[in-house]
């Protein structure tokens, strides 16, 4: 059932509030409230008092004018943080308040003397139920004027919520977290942006996606609120003519957005840049890319078999997001939040991981991060969207000098999409620490390494033209005399990530580059925090 956003107003909460007089807010589950119960009865007897009781409607028994603040609407609207709170209303508006129990304060505030004979002079109060973490999200969703205006969808009472979400076509094939108003309100707390702000215009339906719609999908994807700025930034990175999300959907090639997160935020939100960096087991890695893909699906209407025409696709299209090893990081540990680490992998900061060694720390310090390819300073919180296929392993367990290892990389990179096709596709070369230190220990920067690999991919057009080597595929005949590198200038991006043990790297091939295809896009995250 669809209905407009509900949301009670302050007027509803004002029910029971006297125009003039004293109001107390209490709960039975508070020793100080129990303590002052006789005082409240005394005040009622001497003047006028209305007591809002948060938990037990029968409390305090000795007071007649009790109002049960069952939905905590009064407490929420009047920002009650402590019980007991004693307030005075003049002409229907609050004219003052005190919290906790202090005899002199209460006497001065009420104008009654000799309050609470026999009670201690002072007792601090307890937390109001309306600020209890168990209720606060629901209250924010209900009363908050949080700006949530998404249509409410009510499932049937006999309907399983999870099945109902699949039935409505919202899922990528995996279970979804039901996006209740409470959960969406909590997600919205992850950004300072207003819920109704438009983040991006999403292909293929070219529908505006608000912060709220992004939050709904981020909840479904399983994100935590602290991931949300990364989701919003990543969404802006793909929804533009440069990245060309529409083309990436519509292509028959097996590509989707691959997100690389740089900057301290990656560590702050617990992303994995180490063991099994492209694999399962880390919530942030697994859900951020998924949230963007769910937005493309649900807000943009980009669904496989409809506008998404990929012949084969690739598993990373569920969501593909990871962090890079940056200066001082250790790539050895898997940043896993599943609680399922083995003992050898557990550990906190750099160097504490079981399999870390000093050379990894030096390797981490040796290369500047990917975001510098796009003009950002190292240490900037960024997310780079790369139009990519799935990763393919590069094995070289024998090269100990950088030239030999660069030749291995060049040979592996030449195979992207087709060994005889050049210049049309960019690539990420993900270099794991056991490989990166071969370059770094010889003083090769990331740029120098990429440059040398580019040189080594350069081949004679005669080897690459159509028909050469008995293979029909290849570059046009007129290029036979040219020397052709595999990548256009700036088309090869080295990324430093992976576990500390293993002489491996990985190639992530790109989609058609340039104006007709997609360009990688790097955006700053902090504006979305």
């Amino acid at each position, binding site marked *: 059932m669809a209905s407009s956003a509900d949301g009670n107003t302050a007027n509803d909460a004002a029910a029971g509030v006297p125009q003039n007089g004293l109001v107390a807010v209490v709960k039975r589950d508070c020793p100080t409230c129990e303590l002052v119960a006789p005082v409240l009865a005394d005040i009622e007897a001497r003047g006028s008092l209305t007591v809002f009781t948060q938990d037990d409607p029968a409390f305090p028994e000795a007071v007649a004018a009790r109002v049960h603040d069952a939905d905590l609407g009064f407490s929420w609207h009047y920002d009650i943080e402590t019980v007991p709170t004693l307030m005075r209303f003049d002409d229907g508006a609050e004219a003052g308040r005190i919290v906790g129990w202090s005899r002199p304060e209460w006497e001065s505030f009420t104008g009654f003397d000799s309050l609470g004979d026999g009670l201690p002079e002072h007792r601090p109060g307890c937390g109001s139920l309306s600020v209890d973490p168990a209720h606060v999200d629901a209250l924010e969703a209900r009363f908050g004027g949080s700006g949530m205006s998404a*249509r*409410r*969808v009510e*499932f049937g009472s006999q309907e399983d919520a999870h099945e109902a979400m699949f*039935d*409505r076509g*919202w899922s990528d094939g995996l279970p979804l977290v039901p996006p*209740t108003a409470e959960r969406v309100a909590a997600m919205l707390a992850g950004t300072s942006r207003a819920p109704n702000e438009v983040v991006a215009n999403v292909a293929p339906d070219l529908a505006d996606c608000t912060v709220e719609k992004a939050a709904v999908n981020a909840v479904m994807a399983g994100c935590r609120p602290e991931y949300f700025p990364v989701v919003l930034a990543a969404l802006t990175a793909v929804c533009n003519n440069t990245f060309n999300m529409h083309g990436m959907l519509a292509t028959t090639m097996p590509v989707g957005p691959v997100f690389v997160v740089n900057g301290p935020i990656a560590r702050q939100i617990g992303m994995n840049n180490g063991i099994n960096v492209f694999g399962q087991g880390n919530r942030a890695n697994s859900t951020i890319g998924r949230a963007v893909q769910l937005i493309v699906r*649900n807000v943009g209407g980009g669904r496989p078999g409809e506008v998404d025409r990929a012949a084969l696709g690739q598993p990373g299209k569920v969501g593909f997001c990871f962090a890079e090893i940056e200066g001082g990081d250790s790539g050895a540990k898997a940043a896993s939040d599943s609680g399922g680490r083995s003992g050898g992998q557990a550990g906190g900061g750099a160097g504490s991981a079981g399999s870390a060694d000093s050379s990894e720390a030096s390797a981490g310090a040796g290369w500047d991060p990917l975001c510098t390819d796009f003009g950002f300073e190292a240490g900037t919180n960024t997310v780079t969207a790369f139009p990519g296929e799935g990763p393919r392993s590069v094995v070289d367990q024998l090269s100990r000098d950088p030239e030999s290892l660069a030749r291995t990389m060049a040979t592996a990179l030449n195979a992207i999409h087709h060994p005889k096709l050049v210049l049309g596709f960019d690539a990420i070369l993900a270099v794991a620490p056991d490989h990166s230190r071969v370059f770094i220990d010889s003083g090769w920067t990331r740029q120098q390494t990429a440059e040398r690999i580019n040189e080594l991919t350069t081949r004679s057009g005669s080897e690459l033209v159509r028909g050469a080597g008995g293979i029909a595929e290849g570059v046009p005949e007129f290029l036979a005399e040219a020397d052709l590198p595999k990548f256009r200038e700036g088309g090869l991006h080295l990324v430093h990530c992976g576990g500390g043990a293993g002489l491996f790297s990985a190639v992530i091939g790109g989609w058609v580059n340039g104006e007709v295809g997609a360009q990688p896009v790097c955006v700053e995250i902090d504006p979305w925090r």
Partner: protein
Amino acid sequence: MSTVVLDPTNEAAPAHRERVTRPDSLDGLTVGLLDISKPRGDRFLNRLEERLTERGLRVERYSKPTFTKPAPVDLRHEIATKCDVVIEALAD
């Protein structure tokens, strides 16, 4: 208690799934008669079957094991596969 969630889509489509369009005529269609196993529902459906058969329509009879629970998925599938329209007897 039913779950209420926020719509993750661009809200271009209605929140409700559309019902199948009603046929203009029953001619040539197969009519399923689903007895939900409430008392005397069968009388109502027997009479309907007579009337529909008189008109030359093909009728398939079904019944739920119990009116207290949704029809089993296999039964729903069989009805959806074999019938063009369904009359469910809610008579008591």
